């Protein structure tokens, strides 16, 4: 006996969830491929948890259809869905030992006690907690409790495994380790996972795809790379990776790229599919380079307001005719001092145009 997986895809078709008259989730549609890890990313209150709970069956959709593994489960209660969840608070049963917690789902679904215990032990082994079975949850550290919650959700071999901000109660170092462990486990077992977080770095690190939500609707979905390099709107551009947002004008396009005018400068960006005219340029902090001692050329004149040395790179705050700019520069050997004038140039990558 070993822990296998039966991954299934998830599909939302025009799903809404209303509380009174306000929509926590508003007409949301997406597809999650079996065996992938998809993140729901967005600021607090945007409807991520509600979406996740609708997949679990803890919340019923007000309208729309939810499919898991191609079957319509819209009206199916949580008990009857083969979906498990790792709760933000871990929700470990405080009156049961760690082993009993992990075996719980097996026992209640009628697996024989001995088999359940064996499988629970295996689950604990899988998350690196072999030998902790007889402890109470209160006798474990936060990170260990987290692992127990994961093991408990895993041993049922769910079609979909849900995580609701699983790392928010852990310290930063542990968070990085746990997120790598979760990702590794998910890939090893080929699980379908839906992962909720408000931390864009976490989302970029673990996801096959990311669904960015804002104000109850999907802002954009795609692979981490797509979202970072080709954000579709101001919100996504800003939320993922952070960007300098400055006004520009789309003046021409061809061959998948578009030309944008910024003052007397022209830049080429991936074609955003927008009509010619006013656009917003999202310029990543690391897409700007500073040059001193030169004038003219293909840059814009700036004044260095602030320079911060961070070991691996420099951070600059610049003042320019287009507003303030934030720059991350790997060149620490010859930093530009604060107060100096310089020329800011733009590297080809890391600039995108979005609608104003």
């Amino acid at each position, binding site marked *: 006996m070993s822990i296998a997986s039966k991954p299934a895809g998830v599909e939302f078709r025009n799903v809404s969830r209303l509380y009174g008259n306000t929509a926590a989730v508003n007409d949301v549609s997406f597809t999650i491929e079996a065996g992938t890890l998809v993140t729901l990313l967005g600021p607090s209150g945007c409807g991520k948890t509600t979406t996740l709970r609708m997949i679990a069956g*803890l919340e019923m959709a007000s309208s729309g259809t939810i499919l898991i593994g191609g079957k319509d489960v819209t009206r199916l*209660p949580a008990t009857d869905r083969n*979906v498990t969840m790792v*709760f933000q608070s871990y929700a470990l*049963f405080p009156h049961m030992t760690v082993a009993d917690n992990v075996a719980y*789902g097996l026992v*209640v679904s009628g697996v024989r006690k001995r088999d359940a215990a064996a499988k629970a032990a295996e689950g604990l082994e899988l998350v690196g907690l072999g030998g902790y079975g007889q402890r109470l949850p209160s*006798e474990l550290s*936060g990170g260990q409790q987290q692992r127990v919650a994961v093991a408990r959700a895993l041993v049922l071999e769910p079609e979909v495994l849900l995580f609701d901000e699983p790392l928010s109660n852990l310290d930063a170092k542990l968070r990085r380790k746990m997120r790598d462990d979760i990702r590794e486990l998910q890939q090893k077992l080929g699980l379908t996972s839906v992962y909720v977080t408000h931390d864009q770095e976490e989302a970029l690190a673990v996801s096959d795809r990311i669904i960015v939500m804002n104000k109850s609707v999907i802002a954009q979905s795609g692979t981490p790379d797509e979202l970072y390099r080709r954000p579709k709107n101001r919100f996504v551009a800003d939320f993922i990776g952070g960007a300098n947002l400055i006004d520009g004008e789309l003046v021409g396009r061809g061959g998948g790229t578009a030309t944008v005018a910024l003052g007397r400068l022209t830049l080429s960006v991936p074609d955003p599919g927008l009509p010619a005219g006013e656009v917003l340029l999202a310029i990543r902090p690391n897409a700007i380079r500073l040059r001193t001692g030169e004038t003219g050329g293909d840059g814009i004149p700036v004044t260095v307001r602030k320079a911060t040395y961070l070991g691996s790179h420099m951070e600059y705050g610049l003042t320019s005719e287009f507003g303030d700019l934030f720059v991350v520069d790997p060149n620490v050997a010859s930093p530009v001092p604060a107060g100096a004038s310089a020329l800011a140039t733009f590297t080809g990558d890391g600039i995108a145009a979005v609608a104003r």
Partner: protein
Amino acid sequence: MRPRSAVWLALGWVGFALLPWFAGSGTQPAIAPPSPGPAGSALIDGLTSGRWWLLPLALPLLLALAVTALPGLRARQPVVLLASGAFGLAWVAAQGFAIGLNGWAWTWLGALFGPLPLGQGGFGAGAALTALSFLFLMTNGFAGLGFMKGDRFTAGAIGLVLAAIAAFVFLPVGYVLSGAGDTGTGGFSAAALGARLAAPDIWRLSCLTEAKSCGVVWNSVFLAVLTGIATTLLGLAFALVAVRTGFRAKKLLRVLTVLPIITPPFVISLAVILLFGRNGTVTLAMSDWFGLPVSRWIYGLPGVLLTQTLAFTPISFLVMIGVVQGIGPSLEEAAQTLRASRWVTFRTVTWPLMRPGVANAFLISFIESLADFGNPLILGGNFEVLSTKIYFAVVGAQNDPGRAAALGIILLCLCLGAFWVQRQWLGKKSYATVGGKGDNGIPSQLPRGVKIAAYATALPWAAFTFVLYGLILFGGFTENWGRNNSLTLRHYIAAFDLSWGPGGLIWSGRAWGSLFTTIEVAALSAPLTAAVGLLTAYLLVRQSFKGRGAFEFLTMLSFAIPGTVIGISYILAFNQPPIELTGTVTILIICFVFRNMPVSIRAGVAAMSQIDRSLDECSLTLGAGSVQTIRRVILPLLRPAIVASLVYSFVRAITSISAVIFLVSPKYELATAYIVGRVEQGDFGLAIAYSSALIVLMSVVIALIQFAVGERRIGRRTATPVTLQEKPV
């Protein structure tokens, strides 16, 4: 749904076709009693003895059978189950109320349909089972249609609780309302109702202007407010000392506070009389030493207030200890890390978190006081309160049920009002503080001022209680307290004598009969009360369904009905078919269940709202259904609430007097009623001896229940070797 519906359907058929439809044969003098066994079932009786009105019950049963058995009709099953269950239930009730012992219960029905050849008796086992089956078929139908999130268990539980409350709370109260407007000739008139409700001896305020007593309403309210405040403060003090201080003799404190719970309330009255009555120890000492005149000052408001405070402080303590324990220490620790001093933490975090619990404790004591009967009966003197007035309106020379009913309505309204005020104040706060995580930190120590206040309140009171108990236990061994203090076993022998006769052991003491009945009734009602109460609490806290607000309101209403009102309403309602229960042991059990359910619900609600919801939700995602989740997650975490409910309902069944004094019969006499009878005869010795025996008995049982249910196993880190966490009482 199919298997469970099928089971209920089968039981419905059993009830309809096999079990005797009517209750025991002796209850139907006007008709040929149906013989027990198959011949007495509704089906056979309807076919052979002319009670044709029973036969339509076959229709819903057949319909339900068709949709359950025939695969082709299964799509319609929920609708049909719902309809047939509802029709069946309605028919059972309608024919039961419309046709009494001697034919039509109301003359206009006779005028409409012509006379009936014969009447019918009260519902029996068959009727009860069939009605239950209809109820669950109906709720299964509801769930099948997608209500209550399609959860059959929730639907069934709501249906069951509602039906039970309707039958055993609202139906009797309805009889009281109609009784208050009784014209004396069997009719109802609003004028009669108004006149009874507005009687001057109920409402007058003459005590403010002249030296006469005030209306009975003002007496009751004044007493209840004082008792509520006193018990809440004491309960809080006890809880704080027990949970949040390093007090060494906590065990003793526990024992002392548990003692009054296991005592019938009027026993404290007896002890108070032994101390402060005309022959009381303190009274005699005061007159010897200081020449104070011997007076009857204890008979009246002071005595009743004192005894009620003694009697209800432990209940308040039970409520408060749950509240104090349930406050997640991490919150207080958080406040302290935010630079709040102990006192600021207490004021800004601990106290606001406890406030709903405090309000809750006050509410319970206020209503207990309004409803209390034993203490005002013994110590009230000329200080009349509503509950005693109701009693004397029924049993006294007046024998005026209409007046009793009117007083009952006023008492009821007072209690309802108390609930309303309380709910306004409580608002809609929910404090889930024991989270899903196991580690909640260490309960913080109290600020100095609060600690001193708590000690200063709790400890003297504990000492006083201790003295009273010494008196009770000792008083049973004296010949005649205050006058002849020589020692004797006479009273115990009179009560609990055993002898050997030709047939073996003879229970020849006078107390045995009532004692056995009391234990039987208490043992049967305690688990039922806890079950119904916690089930209701679960529905209220954990399930959201359409009409939850209304459901909550109904259970709340049943909270507010005082024992005296229940007592009189049960006599009025269950003295005649279709539900004929007076003189049986069943009516005593039912009375206790619905009388004590409120505290069980309260305990359950309080405890359940402190368990984080994510625990249930997690269990659901792990494939456990509602029932499994309750059994494996909620119940184990609710152990303190279960213990509280069991203890409370068992003890109340033994100590309660207000409702049952109306319901006991020579065959089923209860200990309390017997003791009060002895007191009225002036036989203090036997009364005290019997009470002491009860106290000892109840201590044993509580210890056993405590042992059987065990304690909550939530590992919190403990501060020092001296644990701050306490076992539930």
